[in-house]
């Protein structure tokens, strides 16, 4: 009995609403369904947001209070976050990154943008500077790993450093050569010096050396011979026969003299004379006929060739990686700042020029203040970007210095997945990173709102 009445009841109501007035019901309907419609429009986005953003954040926060095995650990993860030396290095490096990278990138971008405004081929130049943005971090990391290679024949950075260095300081003839007997020829700061002073002219001073690669011996080197003469004299030779045979510290057949070695005669700690060895390794000081001297082979003979800077050593690895980051992002900053520059009204600049301001003053007091909103946006965007830097560091730092190059995002990955299997601590680091990014985010959101108003 109740069933027929129920459908009957709403019908008259809606019928009444529909028939009583023509204008009101659509309005009401529009108002009601307008709100409903709004909800419908928001729903897909909010479902996506909740599933992909909100849920992971909340879950990470919860997970950060549990240990690796999933047992409740309270704040233990956060304690180890600030006590673990590895994580502290990561925090320290992140601070360096955040201070240095955005500032330098923005500075470069500003310089490029201002300068390219004036040149003819500015689009070509901008395209070239922007190009690295088209390469992924991973690929850039691989490229820069090669740029920083220790071997100057492979690494561009060391090729430049070594090239410049060798212009000013020539490498020596016998790098790495050393005495056969370290007791006879003692190593000093100045080079190798005979342990005992020799009376001039009495006997030949034998100075056997080893560790000279066959390629280093000049072609005109001849069979070593025992020197003779009246003054202080002797022989410098390679006391190593190909094949390893021969008597130690004696001139054997087949052992060659080392030509062109500088030899110094030292008396009471001061060098009194110097000469060079002949093709058969002999040297002589005919003028030194009395007194006794120690003989010294100065270290300039044996200086190791300069093989550049170890860019990826623990001390230099972070600056080196930041440099790679600057290479990638300078174009990004340049493009944004250039577009900001183009919106600056020309008449303001001209007015300043007419008032007698020089170019620097125009830049400093007119362009810069007008540009500052853009600069802030670039900086903040870069700060957020730098805080999460991961791939460059992961790719570029060799395993042995990964600890020294560590950053929070990398540490988060390392403890969660890279062998640590401690997703609790990893989540704690993630939450910490989130907190660090928040101020920059809030600043950005505020700016957007201001701009909208």
């Amino acid at each position, binding site marked *: 009995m109740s069933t027929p009445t129920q459908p009957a009841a709403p019908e008259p109501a809606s019928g009444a609403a529909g028939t009583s007035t023509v204008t009101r019901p659509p309005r009401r309907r529009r108002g009601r369904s307008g709100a409903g419609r709004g909800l419908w429009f928001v729903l897909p986005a909010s479902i996506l947001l909740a599933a992909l953003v909100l849920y992971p954040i909340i879950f990470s926060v919860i997970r950060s209070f549990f240990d690796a095995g999933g047992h409740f650990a309270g704040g233990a993860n956060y304690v180890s976050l600030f006590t673990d030396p590895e994580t502290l290095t990561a925090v320290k490096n992140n601070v360096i990154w955040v201070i240095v990278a955005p500032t330098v990138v923005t500075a470069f971008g500003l310089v490029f943008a201002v300068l390219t405004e004036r040149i003819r081929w500015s689009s070509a130049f901008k395209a070239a500077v922007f190009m690295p943005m088209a390469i992924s971090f991973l690929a850039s990391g691989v490229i820069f790993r090669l740029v920083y290679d220790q071997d100057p024949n492979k690494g561009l950075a060391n090729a430049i450093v070594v090239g410049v260095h060798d212009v000013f300081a020539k490498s020596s003839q016998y790098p790495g050569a050393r005495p056969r007997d370290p007791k006879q020829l003692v190593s000093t700061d100045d080079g190798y010096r005979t342990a005992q002073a020799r009376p001039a002219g009495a006997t030949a001073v034998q100075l056997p050396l080893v560790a000279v690669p066959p390629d280093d011996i000049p072609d005109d080197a001849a069979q070593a011979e025992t020197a003779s003469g009246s003054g202080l004299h002797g022989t410098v030779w390679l006391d190593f026969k190909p094949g390893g045979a021969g008597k130690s510290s004696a001139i054997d057949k087949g052992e060659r003299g080392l030509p062109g070695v500088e030899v110094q005669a030292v008396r009471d700690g001061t060098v009194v004379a110097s000469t060079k060895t002949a093709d058969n390794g002999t040297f002589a000081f005919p003028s030194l006929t009395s007194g006794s001297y120690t003989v010294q082979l100065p270290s300039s003979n044996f200086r190791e060739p300069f093989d550049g800077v170890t860019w990826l050593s623990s001390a230099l690895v972070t600056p080196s990686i930041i440099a790679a980051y600057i290479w990638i992002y300078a174009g990004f900053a340049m493009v944004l700042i250039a577009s900001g520059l183009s919106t600056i009204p020309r008449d303001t600049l001209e007015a300043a020029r007419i008032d007698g301001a020089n170019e620097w003053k125009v830049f400093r007091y007119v362009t810069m203040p007008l540009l500052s909103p853009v600069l802030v946006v670039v900086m903040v965007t870069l700060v957020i970007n730098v805080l999460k830097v991961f791939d460059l560091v992961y790719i570029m730092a060799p395993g*042995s210095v990964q600890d020294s190059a560590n950053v929070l995002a990398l540490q988060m990955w390392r403890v969660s997945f890279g062998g640590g*299997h401690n997703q609790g601590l990893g989540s704690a680091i993630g939450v910490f990173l989130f907190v660090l990014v928040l101020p920059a985010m809030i600043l950005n959101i505020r700016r957007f709102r201001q701009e909208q108003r």
Partner: protein
Amino acid sequence: MRRSIPRTLTTFAAVAACSVLAACGGGGSGGGTGSTASPNNSPSSAASPSPSPSASEPAETGGGESGGSIEVDAVWSGAEAKTFKKVTDAFTAKTGIKVTYSSQGDNLPTVLGTKLAGGKPPDVAMLPQPGLLEQFAKKGQIRKADADVAAAVKKNYSSIWTDLGSVDGTLYGVWIDVANKSTVWYNTAAFDNAGISKAPKTWKQFVADANTLSDSGVSVPISIGGADGWTLTDWFENVYLQTAGPKMYDKLAKHEIKWTDPSVTKALTVLSKLWSNERLVGDPKKALQVDFPTSVTNVFKADAQSAIVYEGSFAAGVISSSTKAKVGSDAKFFPFPSIGGTKTAVVGSGDVAVAFTKNPAAQKFLAFLATPEAAEAMVSTGSFTSANSSLDPSAYPDPTIRAVGTQIVDAGNNFRFDMSDQAPAEFGATKGSGEWKDLQDFLANPSDISGAQKKLEADAKKAFK
């Protein structure tokens, strides 16, 4: 109008839901495979008189047909897979059992886990780590080897291989191939120039020869790839196996003794003496920048600055692919030198074949893998070496790989698996931390033996729980 808006909304919502759940595309293709799979399944189930009771059933009785067939999973692809095909072909020719091989790459453990969870494991899989064997056996997911397999393993292998293929005294697997990580590679031209006619057998001779090489003008006689931590753990494992012996090695591998143990001190002291000698290994800071492939090419490239590099038999691959040197003439190897007169000991790795199903053909296959016949096919291309002691060494294609292989057989029960592979990855296999990092720090500062031991122990303690 009123109607059309909700309709577009619902379609939009449906699209959104699809993109969220990724259900549309997946569901469609899933349905497609389902529909193609069912006609394939129905004739076979119709042909067999008994209705299939469960999903896992076909895999277990797949070999029920005459001749039968088995599915095999392993990590090998490319040339290695081709070599393995020779083994399976020989098996099929002998027994008529068909073998379907699929390569799972380095994901094998994950793939096996998924297949087991889905109730359809392969009949046989080659597990690349001893730890996996134990893990699967403890969960009861692999089948124990039958009497034929046990007899074949006992007959053709040193007793250690029965132990290594067993968990709690029950034999499960056959070690089908074993790699040798106790090989030291050298540049023959550099040795000739220095007048070293015989490769060193003892550690003392090894150090003396390195000094001779230095005298002859080789600036860094021993090349160390310190940028990769695992090369250093391999150094340590070889030295420790020599100085402490296999029993202590097993204990340290399981962390039953501490890293602060005097036996570790002894091994690190040996390494310290070598690594702190800049005349022999160069500047450690530079060595820490050299990765493994570079450490090999440094020895065999033109105008090489180094003459010796220690790493497993796979170094030969780098020599052939990245340098002009020829393995066997320009590049040769000697077994890791014996320290204090110990017998040949080999550190290595390998793949163990285990059965996951009750398919009788799987046991037949395992028994076949333990025969010299299978080993012969396995080693015939030079991709693999075998621990099968009944194998005629002439089956190896060239003298170098033959020597690598015979060294494994010679080591007999003195063979041990790579210790860092047996440890939790956190300790033994993580770039930039654990044992890798601790030994890198030790290479940077070889005089601090006790400091290195303390760090190793602290990290091991964290990882072994």
